[in-house]
C-alpha cells in the first residue's frame, strides 16, 4: 500500500506515541530484573496503565516553550547587568537572602535533576518514567538560570563565589543537603512522595512565594524573572506530585499506610528545612512581604487543610505533628535567626539586629510572644554590638541527628526550654530536636547513624583542621568578608559609598 500522508496527530496522540509508543516489555530479561527498584518499597501496582499523565507535553512543544521563556529571561538578566540592577535593591542586607538561596536552594535544583534522572530510569511504567525524565531537564534548567541570574551579585557582594563547594561542606548547608540525600537514597516512590508531593505540592508555596515576592518587594528583578520563568515548570511538577499519590492510593489499599508514613516523614523534614525561609521572611528582607506566621496560616493551614480534606477519601490523615508545626510558626523565625546570629562568624552571609521599626513590626506580627521572649534579647545584642562587644557563640552547637539543625528549638508550649529527644541504638545515643525527627530516626536508625554531622566531623578532624580558621578555609570562606556581622562588613561599606554617591549626583 502506498504511503498516504497521515493527518497531523493531536497532542494527546503525539504524547502517547512519545510514552506508550516508545515503551515495550522486555523478553530477554524479566521485567523484575530490568526494573528492580520499583517494587521493593512495598508499593503494589496492579496496572501501570492506570497512571494518568498529569501533563502531556511533547518534546517539540517542550523545547519551543522553554526556549521562548529562556529568551525572555536572558534578555532581563542582560539588562539587569547593563543597568546596574543591583543598585535598585532596597538595601544591601537583602543580598544575604540571595546568598542563602544560591548556597542552600539552587544546589537542590541540581540534586533534584539527579534524583529525577535516577527514578526516570527506574519505573517500569512508561508514563511516570517520561514525566520524571522531563522534570529532570526542568531541574537542570532551574539550577542554570538561578546561577546565571544571581551571578551579577557575585561581582559586587561577598559570599556568592563558591556555592556548590559550600553546599557540600558548610554546617548549615548540611540541612538542605541531607534532606535531598535522604530523598535520593530512598526508593523511587518515596522519592516522588518526598520531592514531588511533600516538597513541591504541599510546601512549595512556602518556599518560592516568599523568595519571589520578597525579591519583587525589594527591587530584585533578576530573581523575580527566574521565578516567573520557573513557574510553569513548577505547575507541572505539582501535578506530578499529586498524581503519584493518587496512583499509589488507588492501586492497592495496602499502599495507604506506607504513603501515610512517607507523608508524615517528609512533611516534618520539609518544615524543618523551611526554617531557613522563615527567618528570611521575618529578618532578612528589608521590605517585608508578610510574616512567617501569616504565610504558614495561608499556605499550610488553609491550603494544606483543603488538600488533606480531599485526600481523606483515600484514608489519608493530615501529617502527624502538623499541630506542633503550626505552633512553631510563632517561634521558628526568631529561634532560627538567633542561631545564625550566634554563629555568623562561621556563616557565608551576614546577620544583624533588626532596626527599631523592624522590631516594632515583629512585635506587631507576633503580639503574644515577641516582646516576651525575643525582643529583650535582640535589644541586648544590639547594645552589646554598639559597645564594641558583638556577641558570638564560641562553642560549636549540638545538632539534631536527623534534620542536622543546631538544637535551638524550644518546647513549643514552653519557649524558655530547649526541646530534647533521644534514642538508643546499638549502645549509642542519638539526639533529636523533636518528636518528628525522633520518629524518623527510630523507624530507620541504620540510615541515620550514617549522618555526616558537621560538628562531629570537625571534632573528628575531617574538616581541614582543629582551629575554626582552618575549618573556614576548608569551607572556602574569605575571612572577614563573607562571614561576621553585617555592620562594618565590606558589603555595607560598598553599599554606603554607592548611596553617598547617589546623593551627590
Amino acid at each position, binding site marked *: 500500500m502506498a504511503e498516504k500522508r497521515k493527518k497531523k496527530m493531536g497532542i494527546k496522540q503525539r504524547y502517547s506515541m512519545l510514552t506508550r509508543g516508545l515503551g515495550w516489555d522486555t523478553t530477554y530479561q524479566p521485567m523484575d530484573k530490568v526494573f528492580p527498584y520499583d517494587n521493593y518499597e512495598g508499593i503494589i501496582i496492579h496496572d501501570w496503565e492506570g497512571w494518568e499523565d498529569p501533563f502531556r507535553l511533547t518534546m517539540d512543544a517542550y523545547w519551543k516553550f522553554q526556549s521562548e521563556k529562556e529568551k525572555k529571561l536572558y534578555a532581563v538578566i542582560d539588562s539587569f547587568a547593563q543597568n546596574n540592577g543591583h543598585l535598585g535593591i532596597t538595601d544591601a542586607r537583602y543580598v544575604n537572602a540571595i546568598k542563602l538561596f544560591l548556597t542552600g536552594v539552587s544546589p537542590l535544583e541540581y540534586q533534584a535533576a539527579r534524583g529525577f534522572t535516577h527514578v526516570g530510569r527506574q519505573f517500569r511504567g512508561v508514563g511516570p518514567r517520561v514525566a520524571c525524565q522531563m522534570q529532570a531537564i526542568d531541574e537542570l534548567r532551574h539550577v542554570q538560570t538561578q546561577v546565571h541570574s544571581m551571578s551579577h551579585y557575585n561581582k559586587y557582594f561577598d559570599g556568592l563565589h563558591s556555592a556548590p563547594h559550600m553546599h557540600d561542606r558548610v554546617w548549615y548547608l548540611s540541612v538542605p543537603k541531607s534532606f535531598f540525600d535522604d530523598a535520593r537514597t530512598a526508593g523511587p516512590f518515596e522519592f516522588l512522595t518526598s520531592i514531588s508531593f511533600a516538597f513541591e505540592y504541599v510546601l512549595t508555596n512556602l518556599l518560592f512565594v516568599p523568595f519571589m515576592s520578597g525579591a519583587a518587594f525589594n527591587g530584585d528583578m533578576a530573581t523575580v524573572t527566574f521565578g516567573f520563568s520557573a513557574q510553569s515548570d513548577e505547575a507541572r511538577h505539582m501535578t506530578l506530585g499529586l498524581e503519584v499519590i493518587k496512583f499509589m492510593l488507588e492501586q492497592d489499599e495496602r499502599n495507604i499506610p506506607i504513603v501515610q508514613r512517607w507523608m508524615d516523614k517528609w512533611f516534618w523534614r520539609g518544615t524543618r528545612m523551611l526554617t531557613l525561609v522563615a527567618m528570611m521572611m521575618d529578618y532578612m528582607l528589608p521590605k517585608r512581604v508578610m510574616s512567617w506566621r501569616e504565610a504558614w496560616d495561608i499556605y499550610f493551614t488553609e491550603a494544606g487543610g483543603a488538600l488533606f480534606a480531599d485526600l481523606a477519601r483515600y484514608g489519608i490523615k493530615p501529617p502527624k505533628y502538623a499541630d506542633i508545626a503550626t505552633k512553631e510558626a510563632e517561634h521558628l523565625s526568631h529561634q532560627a535567626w538567633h542561631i545564625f546570629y550566634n554563629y555568623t562568624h562561621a556563616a557565608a552571609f551576614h546577620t544583624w539586629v533588626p532596626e527599631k521599626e523592624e522590631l516594632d513590626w515583629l512585635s506587631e506580627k507576633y503580639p503574644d510572644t515577641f516582646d516576651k521572649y525575643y525582643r*529583650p534579647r535582640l535589644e541586648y545584642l544590639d547594645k552589646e554590638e554598639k559597645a564594641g562587644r558583638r556577641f558570638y557563640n564560641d562553642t560549636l552547637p549540638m545538632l539534631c541527628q536527623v534534620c542536622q539543625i543546631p538544637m535551638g528549638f524550644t518546647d513549643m508550649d514552653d519557649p524558655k526550654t530547649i526541646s530534647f529527644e*533521644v534514642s538508643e541504638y546499638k549502645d549509642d545515643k542519638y539526639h533529636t530536636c523533636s518528636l518528628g525527627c525522633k520518629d524518623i530516626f527510630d523507624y530507620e536508625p541504620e540510615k541515620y547513624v550514617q549522618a555526616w554531622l558537621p560538628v562531629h566531623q570537625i571534632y573528628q578532624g575531617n574538616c581541614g583542621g582543629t582551629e575554626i580558621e582552618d575549618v573556614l578555609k576548608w569551607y572556602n570562606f574569605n575571612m572577614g568578608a563573607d562571614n561576621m556581622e553585617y555592620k562594618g562588613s565590606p558589603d555595607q561599606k560598598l553599599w554606603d559609598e554607592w548611596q553617598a554617591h547617589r546623593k551627590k549626583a
Partner: protein
Amino acid sequence: MSVTSIGKYEFEPLDKQENFHGNQLTYINWEQHLLFCAPVCLPLPPEMPFGAFVQEVLSGVYSKHPDFEKIDWDAAKWTLDGADFTPDLGKSLADNGLGHKSLIRFWTPGLKGIAGSHS
C-alpha cells in the same frame, strides 16, 4: 524497624567514640539562658575531673553571659541523660557516669537571663 532496602543494609555509625581521638562527645546546656542559642557539643577526655569541667569548660563556654558570674554552684541543679544527678566534683566525668554523647543540663535558680526573658 530496619531500613527498607534493595539488599543487605548495615553500615558503621559515623560517630563512634573511637573516632574522637580519646575524647568523648559531651553535650551541655545551661537552662533558660537562651542567649546561647543551643546546647553546645565538646569532645572531652573521660578522665577530666568534674571540678575542672565546671571551672574551665563551663566558664569557657558561658562566661560571656552577665549571669554567669552570679551563679551559686552549690544551688545549681543538674540532670544527666534525663535523670536528676548530683555531680562529685572530685571524680572524673566517666566516674560521674558521663558516657559518649551524654547530655548534661544544669539549672541556676534565681537567674532569669537577659531582662528576665530567659535568654
